[in-house]
């Protein structure tokens, strides 16, 4: 397995120059076969980490160029597969999409002969998608006000008498339903199958204390920064980034909602083998360690976790903590439409 090669400025320049020289070859379709992969990713700062740890080393190891585009979108996946005009060989996916998308036949089955997942945690294994990392969402709070009276668990979050303050939750039912149950005292292992009626009753209790139903992830931290809310459901990566720019904001690790960063190959890709080789590359132990060091998403390989930089490790979600909940997208299949409709009606009344 290739060990990490420190990137010097010269090697980057050389890489770009080599890319430029090689570029004309990819215009010719004959040459392009198996020599180029198109990957659609979520963008953001993580892109640079992936470029450095995944994409460029992959090209170096295999000679397969990687071209990227941003904005994974289920509707676009459906159009590409149905019209047999697949532009993205690989796309990153929201974990909630994976079961539905797999059932709709939009993904190639993961080739277990190429992708070795023996050390992968079971939650990140899917027949049609490869889970590279674990991300976490949890309660974010300000550290410069409230004088330490802070909600750290979802039951605290629901206890508005003991811990007063304005709350912020997402304006969608996925995650919110699970959070409501945990707020009502359900332990993480008992959340699924969800008791929908109980969840909505719990939501009724907190409705008036939620000052904002958050539409976009970045709002979750900015609401706290601008004193619009005291406790919000936010992603750890965002909180860390805010802390690094000296925003007085904290994040509770006591009870997190964990999700998986998935990637999969689109059904009918002309570069199936290369795509599988790339997916295998994302499951490489050293790649996962380096990515975790740069992005604070936890590796999905059990043997990669102990190798992560100790300074970063305190930010990684604790997969073994029984208080944490792995979201279960399978439970949501066929329920999202109905429950979200009910949730939106509930919001309007």
């Amino acid at each position, binding site marked *: 397995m290739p060990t990490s090669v420190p990137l010097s400025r010269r090697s980057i320049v050389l890489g770009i120059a080599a890319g430029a020289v090689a570029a004309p070859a990819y215009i010719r379709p004959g040459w392009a076969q198996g020599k180029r992969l198109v990957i659609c990713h979520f963008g953001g700062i993580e892109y640079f980490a992936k470029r450095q740890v995944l994409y460029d080393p992959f090209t170096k190891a295999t000679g397969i160029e990687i071209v990227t585009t941003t904005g994974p*979108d*289920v*509707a676009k996946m*459906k159009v590409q597969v149905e019209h047999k005009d697949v532009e993205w060989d690989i796309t990153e996916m929201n974990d909630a999409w994976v079961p*539905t998308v797999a059932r*709709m036949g939009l993904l190639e089955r993961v080739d277990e002969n190429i992708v070795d997942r023996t050390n992968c945690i079971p939650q990140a294994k899917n027949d049609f998608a490869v889970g590279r990392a674990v991300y976490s969402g949890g309660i974010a709070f300000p550290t410069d006000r409230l004088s330490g009276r802070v909600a750290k668990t979802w039951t605290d979050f629901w206890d508005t008498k003991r811990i007063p303050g304005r709350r912020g939750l997402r*304006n969608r039912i996925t995650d919110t339903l699970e959070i409501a149950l945990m707020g009502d005292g359900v332990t993480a292992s008992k959340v699924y199958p969800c008791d929908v009626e109980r969840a909505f009753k719990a939501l009724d209790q907190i409705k008036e204390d*939620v*000052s*904002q*139903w958050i*539409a*976009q992830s970045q*709002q979750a931290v*900015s609401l706290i920064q*601008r*004193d*619009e809310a005291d406790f919000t459901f936010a992603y750890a990566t965002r909180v860390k980034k805010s802390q690094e720019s000296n925003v007085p904001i904290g994040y509770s690790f006591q009870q997190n909602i964990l999700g998986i960063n998935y990637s999969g190959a689109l059904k009918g890709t002309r570069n199936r083998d290369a795509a599988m080789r790339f997916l295998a590359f994302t499951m490489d132990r050293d790649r996962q360690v380096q990515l975790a060091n740069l992005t604070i998403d936890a590796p999905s390989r059990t043997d990669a976790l102990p190798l992560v930089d100790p300074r970063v490790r305190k930010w990684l979600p604790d997969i073994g903590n029984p208080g944490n909940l792995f979201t279960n997208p399978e439970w949501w299949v066929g329920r*999202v*439409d109905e429950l*979200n*409709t009910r949730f*939106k*009606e509930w*919001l*309007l*009344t």
Partner: protein
Amino acid sequence: MIRNLARTYFREALYAIPAVLFMAFLFAMPLLGVLSQSLQRNSGGGPSLEAWTKVFTTPLFLKVAIATLEISIGATLCSLLLAYPVAYFLAKQPPRRRVLYMILVLIPFWTSSLVKSFSLMVLLGHSGIINELLATVGIGPVKMLFNRFGVMVGMSHYLIPFMVFPILTSLQNQPPELGRAAAIMGAGKLRIFTRVTFPLSLPGVMAGALLVFVLSLGFYIIPALLGGRKDMMFANLVDFYTREVLNWPVASAVAVLLALAAAAAATLLSKVQSGSSIYSEEAR
């Protein structure tokens, strides 16, 4: 004579052909596609009224339709109240200065509505600039964000230019002699405005109002960011059904309803505009 007229008419129609073709291929055909999509079964396989039944029997759609109408009408009224004085002021300016001021009116267009929404949060927030100022006088904090007020501010900010220009045009089209004649007959400034200027500018007001109303119907990001839990728009439902549950027939049905509402308003708009041209011919 009639032949000549027919020929001119025909020649004029020729000029419209590129635009007609453009609209037919890039607007009408996709729109028909959306309509036929709304009449398909979501699971695939054959035509069905399933999507339309869902839209008309689920209370959510009616509630969101009402919220969309409320917000659109509110935004139209706010924009009108704020835009009329601007247009009136612009109409009174000498042409050169007017051009400069018109550029100022257009400046909000140079920023994306996402960026604008976030900067409005800084202004209107709980510890935002306005509330800090109010606090120095001992008032507040006033809740201006995450409610209907925030939505109205955000939307009007975006929509005002669309209201200013039609009103300005109709104010500029008014022959100045009318006002002078009224003054000679002894009318005061207020009377001239209420009896002459304002009634004659009504076609512009109507045109602007309908334009702004139609645009409001499709708003999406601003209500989601600046509004509260009840500020939900039809366009959010289109997005939800297109991208999250992949029920394209329902998304299409909602889109068709939106398009119909916009078309109804546009029909009204064309009536009003032809009315305004008749008036200006009469006036000359």
